């Protein structure tokens, strides 16, 4: 049989697609009169060759893992949750309230409390669209888009009018108490006096995101609920035959999705800025869509895709530091990566498949 082997599909196809994306990015860089090889070196240098670079890459990765998982869980129930951005924002409100109003004695307790609050707030923000979809048939894509905008306004109101300490210019909450500050990689891994990971925002939340990957994997493929979610996603009529309530699954899947998106704010709000700021989500909710789709809605794929996007975010920052390349270049590179690995992957896969098929035939003959 000349079927394409699994490794080729899992590794070769994405790799070639990435190369294509890199090639077109290079053309764009040339087009604006810069040197693509230098640019690439700068990115790799800054993102992967220094511990602090890794510290940034993994910080972004953590965000994308959470939002990617959020999109993926909903996708398994055939729900397109574009609302990760808003859910993460409101999750941040949960983190802020938990950290500002509860005197945590130690960060280990604070992270538990903050995660719970983030998850609850994120889930709550996802609940209304989920409920409306399940009960009233309001299209979840519209309602989650609307809820993103509404979340912006809610957050803006809270920060300007409620949480902002008097006299502060910044629309941001007060800083969280010292006791809640999460250990970052520098504190965790750097030997005494070493500069390893210094200043980088990656923190213990990264491991929380890995746990979330495991959680989602177990949930989706190892539990009854996951079975329900997947079967509902593939066929609503069949799920009804099996006795699964569409309303229940829609709501539960979206609650989990919203909770995961909300938990991203543990990384940004508690882990990095240590106060609630207006734009801590920075579009990670949308990148999550690309991450989930590229990662084929599987935690391992999502982890890989999140790493790739983390690398691009950090590498792009390095590029911005040392060159005159406009920061939009990174957006273009990200777009090309999404395009080639996500949407045009068949362009690579189809000829490869044919190649393997012919090769297999010849061998058999």
């Amino acid at each position, binding site marked *: 049989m000349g079927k394409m082997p699994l490794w080729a599909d899992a590794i070769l196809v994405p790799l070639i697609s990435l190369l294509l994306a890199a090639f077109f990015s290079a053309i764009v860089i040339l087009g604006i009169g810069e040197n693509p090889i230098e640019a690439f070196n700068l990115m790799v240098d800054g993102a992967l060759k220094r511990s602090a670079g890794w510290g940034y890459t993994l910080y972004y990765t953590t965000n994308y893992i959470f939002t990617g998982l959020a999109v993926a869980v909903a996708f398994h129930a055939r729900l397109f949750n574009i609302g990760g951005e808003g859910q993460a924002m409101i999750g941040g409100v949960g983190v802020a309230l938990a950290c500002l109003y509860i005197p945590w004695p130690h960060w280990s307790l604070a992270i538990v409390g903050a995660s719970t609050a983030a998850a609850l707030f994120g889930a709550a923000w996802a609940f209304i669209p989920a409920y409306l979809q399940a009960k009233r048939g309001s299209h979840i894509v519209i309602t989650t888009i609307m809820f993103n905008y509404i979340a912006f306004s809610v957050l803006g109101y809270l920060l300007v009018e409620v949480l902002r300490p008097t006299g502060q210019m910044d629309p941001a909450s007060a800083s969280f108490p010292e006791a809640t500050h999460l250990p970052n990689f520098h504190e965790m891994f750097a030997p005494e006096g070493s500069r390893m990971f210094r200043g980088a925002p990656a923190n213990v939340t990264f491991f929380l995101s890995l746990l979330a990957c495991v959680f989602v994997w177990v949930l989706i493929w190892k539990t009854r609920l996951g079975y329900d979610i997947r*079967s509902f996603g593939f066929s609503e*009529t069949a799920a009804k*035959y099996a*006795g699964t309530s569409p309303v229940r699954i829609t709501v539960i899947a979206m609650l989990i999705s919203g909770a995961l998106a909300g938990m991203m704010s543990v990384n940004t709000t508690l882990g990095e800025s240590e106060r609630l700021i207006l734009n801590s989500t920075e579009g990670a909710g949308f990148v999550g869509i690309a991450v989930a789709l590229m990662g084929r809605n599987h935690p391992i794929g999502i982890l890989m895709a999140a790493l790739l996007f983390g690398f691009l975010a950090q590498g792009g920052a390095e590029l911005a530091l040392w060159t005159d390349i406009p920061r939009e270049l990174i957006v273009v590179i990200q777009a090309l990566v999404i395009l080639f690995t996500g949407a045009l992957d068949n362009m690579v896969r189809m000829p490869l498949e044919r190649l393997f098929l012919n090769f297999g035939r010849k061998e058999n003959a």
Partner: protein
Amino acid sequence: MAAPAASTPLALELKGISKAFGPVQANKDISISVRPGTIHGIIGENGAGKSTLMSILYGFYKADSGEIYIRGQKTNIPDSQAAIAAGIGMVFQHFKLVENFTVLENIILGAEDGALLRPSLAKARKTLKTLAEEYELNVDPDAMIEDLSVGHQQRVEILKALYRQADILILDEPTGVLTPAEADQLFRILDRLRKEGKTIILITHKLREIMEYTDTVSVMRRGQMTATVQTKDTSPEGLAELMVGRKVLLQVDKEPAKPGDEILKIEGLRVVDEAGVERVKGIDLTVRAGEIVGIAGVAGNGQSELLEVLGGFQDATGSVTVNGQELPLSGHGADGQARRAAGIAHVPEDRQKEGLIMEFSAWENSVFGYHHEPEYQNGILMDNKGILAKAADQMERFDVRPPHPHLAAKNFSGGNQQKIVVAREIERNPDVLLIGQPTRGVDIGAIEFIHQQIVNLRDQGKAILLVSVELEEVLSLADRVAVMFDGQIMGERNASETDEKELGLLMAGVTGETS
């Protein structure tokens, strides 16, 4: 039925057609000739490659190699447009209609006479009227396809072909979803078409149809053409053997029933659907242990709703008891899981949309609907290893081919998909088995096997409620037959004391005492 003179060119000739779907060789070097003015049957097991071959002829798939001759002319058919131009029409196994278009819109789609619709529609309306008169193909031109019965939908497909002036008509398993009356009607039409000199290719799993209506028959196996014979020179048994490669039992082999206690008791059951139409209008029915009760009837007379109520995914009023236990018919506790807990297993009518998750592997499907049961749990997780092992064993015993539990359901043929569903439901050892259209589109080898399994279950003292539009199947498999018409039961008969004619009348809503 005079055979055309030898000098007239063949209507159709395929030479050395091969087609692979990736690694699957669906057609291997197939050659076939069809004479004009004949009905040419094609039979073969599920997955033998029949539909693929015909789809190639219709330009739906492109052959890897081979040549097509139409009326003696070598013809290149790169797409369906070319096939239509060459006078070929095809009625697919799964209809290719736009469900929320009207009949008329479906008819003209692709065959419009100009950029504006109005003249095309007017012309089509007129032509349709002539065609309807000529061939007794009545359909309301302004009806939505989704509101039509399957039989009518099929008429639309045939009309589509005739509207395009096809003179070679391919029908892929046309009677799989038709009632006996509709099937008879179809064959009358086909006969008339043949008399007009049109050529018809008929794919079917039903040997009776082959024997009764075809002139020639070709047999396919595993992508190859194994034989082409004159129908009059062969017998059902002979064909079955050619097809499956072994002797097949064509009759259901069963002892008389020994009914025991009343297990399933239905009283005054009423169903109103979402649109507010009353689908089931007060049914009383009892099924005892150790008997098979068959429900016959033209599709759309409330049988499906009956099964759905009993299966737990349709609300109803009235009373249903199992072993004396009243079942809730709406709200909480009226879902599939509760029904299974009450001892009801259900092989649904539509295996692909209801019975299986096509993207799930066979082992995952082997517990579909039962996946909440403690038996399959391992703490808070599912016991996937255990389920896999059981599934592999089950597939072995139910002769599912290929016996690969990791293969996705969509990659099994229809017959084998059905076996997976039947295996799952029977294995639970239910008190009541609901079973809808158990052999629709399934090849004779698999039919034999599935029927045998149902009879075995009966003999273990289970109550079985069978719904089928195949009268033949109901008569041979059931012990008692109830006929449904317009949401009501028109009458009950012992299977051994009735015949197709009597049932046929009941199915048409004609009651009254017959002998």
